[in-house]
Structure formats: C-alpha cells, structure tokens
C-alpha cells in the first residue's frame, strides 16, 4: 500500500478556497486521453480502491485530492501500469488510453510507460551525472548520437527551467543538487523521452514553498505540450493550477474495518471548490472533514 505521511492542511473552518471563476469556467473540451471505467485496484485480496470512473482530457492539468490512504496515488499508478512491478497488485475494470485497454494482454507495460511518464513524490535521480540522467531515457529509446543527445539534454533542462543553473556542471553528479533542483531534474528526465502524459505523484511534498511555486509554474508551461495528472495533498495547489479535480475519500467497511478508497466527485476545479455537489467534498475542502 502506498501510504502518504503528511496530513492535509485544511483551510480555516468554513473558509472557501478562492478560484478565479471566470478563467476556470472556460476549461476547454479537449480530446479524452484516459477513460477509466469502474477501476478497482487490489493488493493481494485487499481491495484498495473501487469505483473510479472518470475521463482525463488532453493538455489539461487534472488534480487528484483527498485524505491520506484514499487511493489517489494507487489510481495514478494504474494509469501507466506501475503496479506491474509490485507483487500481488492487480487492476480490475477498464483503463482506456485513447480507446485502447491498457491492461489488454498484448499491451506492453514498457511501451505504455514510454508514452506515459511519471514524476515521483521523492526526487529520485540516478546516481549518475546530470547529463546522463537526462540522456538515460533517450538512450533507452535508441538515440545514441552525441549531437542529438546534447540537443535533447539542453531542451529538456530548459523545459524544466533548470538549464541556466546547471549548464556549467552537466558532468557533476545529480545527487549534489538541492531537493528542488533534483525534482526539476526528474521532470526534465521525464520530458526528455517526449511522453504524451506526465503523471505526478505529490511532486512538491518534499519541497519548500519557493521550489513548489517553480514547479507549479513549470506545470502550467508544460500543459501546452503534455497532459498532466497530479496527486496532491495541498488543496491550494489543486485550486491554483488544475483545470479539473477529482476528490477521493476512504470508505470504512464496518464489518471488518477495511478501508477502501473511492472517487466521490470529479468536475472542473472551479466547481469542486465553489459549488461541490457532494456533501463529503464540501466538508473536506472547507476543513470540516473528519
């Protein structure tokens, strides 16, 4: 089970998070990238998540919010088959990517992940040089010419707003960078393989507010080139940068005290934060959750 440690920081009682309604009301109807239908995720016999039905649209930022243990990360990882590497994990229901069932037997998880990249909660650069970190993905995909790689490395680092900080020390180890720089390096590394979708699993939870602001700014820039799905504990973050928001919560089975995450509500972010249709969403975003 992927558990997250920090508690959500709700705003003061009864106070709403402000969303610029005019800008947010114009979320365009772009093509559907992911079509999830009644998705369930099991770890062994334990059902961690049930009943997730939602459509994620292209070139938008979709945020997954909800309390700890509600299955946000679990659902996110089912979108690029990261559960395959966990023994006993299993996905039921349908996850369609441009209409293709991601869990069909002929689908290769490697091919899926090449198109759907992921940035993790904790920055996880390889213990290699900054250059080799970025060049890793392109090399795996068969690009080996030095000139080609140089171009990709510069372009990716510029995309992640990191180029000016590291251009003179590309041969240095990535482990010598600060946490915020490492996370932007991980974003650059993901961008370098030119995926269509970038999944982000609480990318800012280990970062200070300044580094967080940079990553959010980066997400808004990358939106034009990629579809972004972000899991976050920070409701302000979801309100600030996402177009659509999915609210998850935990249901407790009173018979055996088992907790299962489920999707409560999915809508445009402005709607979720101003006029949610479910009482549980309302309680969570106004801090009356509990």
């Amino acid at each position, binding site marked *: 089970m992927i558990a997250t440690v920090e508690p959500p920081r709700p705003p003061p009682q009864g106070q709403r998070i402000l969303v610029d309604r005019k800008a947010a009301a114009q979320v365009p109807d772009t093509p559907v990238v992911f079509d999830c239908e009644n998705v369930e995720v099991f770890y062994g016999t334990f059902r961690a998540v049930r009943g997730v039905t939602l459509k994620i649209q292209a070139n938008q930022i979709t945020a997954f919010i909800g309390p700890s243990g509600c299955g946000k990360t679990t659902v996110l990882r089912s979108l690029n088959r990261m559960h395959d590497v966990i023994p006993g994990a299993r996905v039921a229901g349908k996850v369609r990517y441009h209409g293709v069932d991601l869990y069909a037997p002929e689908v290769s998880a*490697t091919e899926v992940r090449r198109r759907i990249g*992921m940035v993790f909660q904790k920055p*996880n650069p390889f*213990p290699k040089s900054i250059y080799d970190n970025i060049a890793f993905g392109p090399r795996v995909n068969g690009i080996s010419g030095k000139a080609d790689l140089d171009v990709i490395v510069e372009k990716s680092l510029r995309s992640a707003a990191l180029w000016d900080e590291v251009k003179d020390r590309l041969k240095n180890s990535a*482990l*010598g960078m600060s946490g915020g720089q490492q996370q932007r390096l991980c974003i650059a590394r993901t961008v370098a393989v030119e995926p269509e979708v970038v999944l982000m699993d609480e990318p800012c939870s280990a970062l200070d507010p300044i580094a967080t602001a940079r990553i959010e700014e980066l997400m808004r820039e990358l939106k034009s080139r990629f579809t972004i799905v972000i899991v976050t504990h920070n409701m302000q973050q979801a309100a600030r940068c996402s177009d659509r928001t999915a609210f998850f919560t935990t249901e407790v089975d009173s018979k055996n005290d088992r907790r299962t995450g489920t999707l409560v509500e999915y809508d445009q972010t402005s709607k979720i934060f101003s006029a949610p249709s479910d009482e549980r969403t309302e309680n969570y975003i106004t801090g009356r959750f509990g």
Partner: protein
Amino acid sequence: MTASSITNPPDLRARPSWRATKNTILMTAMGGAVVLVAIPLIAVLWSVVSRGIVMTFAQFPAFFTEAIPVVSRRPGPGMGPAILGTLLVTGGATVIAVPLGILGAVYLHEYGQSGTFARLVRFMSTVMTGVPSVVMGLFVYLTWTLAFGYSAFGGALALACLMLPVVIGSTEQMLKLVPPQLREAAYALGTTKSRTILTVVLPAALPGIVSGSLLAIARAAGETAPLLFAVGAATAYNPHLFSEANTALSVQIFGNANSSFPAAQERAWAAALTLVLLTFIVTLVARTFTARLALKR
C-alpha cells in the same frame, strides 16, 4: 506568571546516573574488543614482515623473478614461478567465479526472488559456503585432475567453487540495498527490466559487488589444500594454464615451512610476505578503479 517569576537559573549539568555508568562500561568494553581483534592481526603482520622482509627485498628483485631452488636446503632467493602460479590460479578462478556469481545473484534477486527454484539455489549456495576447502580440492581431483593431470586450471576450478557462493551471497545483499525508487524511475521512462538491471541496478551496486568479490579473491589466494590436489608443486616457471604441474605461493609456503632446512623456512616467510603484498596490491588497484568509476558529488 510573569517573566520575573523565574529566579533560579535551571541546572543543566549532567547528573550522575546509572545510564552514564553503563555508557562508560560499554564504551570501555567496545574499545577492549577493538584492541582484542587488532592484536592477532598486528601480530601476524609483524611476524611475517620481520621474518620475511630481509629475504624478500635483499637482492631485489631476485626473489620475485628467480626460479625456486630445486634443492630446498640451498639458500637464496626465488619465488617467481609461485607468484606466476598464484596469479594464474587465482586469476582463472576470478574469471570463472565472479561473472558466474554476479549472474547467479542477479537471477536470485531480480528474477527468481522467492520462487521454489531460487530458494533451492540459495540453500545450495549456503551449503556450499560450508564445504571445507580440502573437500573441494578432492572433488576437483576426482572430476578433473585424474582425467587431465595437474594444471593451474584445476586449481582455478577448485578455488572458483570456493569463491562462487561468497560472490553470490555478497552480490545479492548489495542488490537488495539498491533503492526501489531507482528501479521505478527507470521503469517510468519505458525501460525494460533487463536494461534497468544493466544500466541502473548493477552500476548502483558496483562498489559493494567489487568489495565482496575482492574478499572472495583474497580468501582464495591463500588457500593451500585444494591446490595440493590439483596444481602440484613445480619449481620452474610454467606459463601454461591448462597443462603441466604448476605451483602457487600458498603451496610453497606450506612446503617450505614444513622443511627442516633454515634456508627453506626463510623462503617460506618471504613467500608469505609476498602473498600479503600481492593481495594488498590487488585490493588497492580494484578500489582505485571503482572509485574512479563512481562520480564525485
């Protein structure tokens, strides 16, 4: 409560306690243990160096190049063939056991995991660690030496059998220490499992794998019993890996130390010092090489 109500400054000095006493007792015990462990090590080094250094470096580099005197009571230098033999036998064993051991560990940790076959292999490997080296020598004698005669390669086979479980065990431990986040990072970029192992997991575990392998090599270089069965005891140079009796430093130490002639005993001490130096140099070279590969922060 007002600020002025604090009149006496708090006493922050350490108070005598049972905890502090326990700390002192255990720290002393640990220090004692370090000394206890260091005494035999220093004693061994001292006796080898003090008794071997004159013969080893007296007519430098004669001791390292000249052949071993056929008549063992004749004084004078010569361990060249044994140095070459040790390099051939240990080098051969390394070439066999280290790649095989790393491949085995990769299978056990990355593919077999807790499957029945992997558990069987792991169990067998543990059992193999406990087999006495003389039994391993006997095994090679029966399966190889009886058919093909004495050779450096027979000795390499015997030492490889001894090294293999050590390399498997230490490499598997090192693979376990590679953070799963690194694998996830590679997978998320569309990397296949085999490529992830080759380009992320093994490089990350390399320093540990090198250390484990060096330990196995150092242990094998000093083995005597299996070589007596498989290598023989030549006194002249034999650069052939697969044919004719060869010799090794450990075998020469054993033979010469058993001799009643002072000249031979002197050569045994010098050969012992040579073996220590050889192991030291190999370790140093391998460590430098690994450090070169690892990036500076």
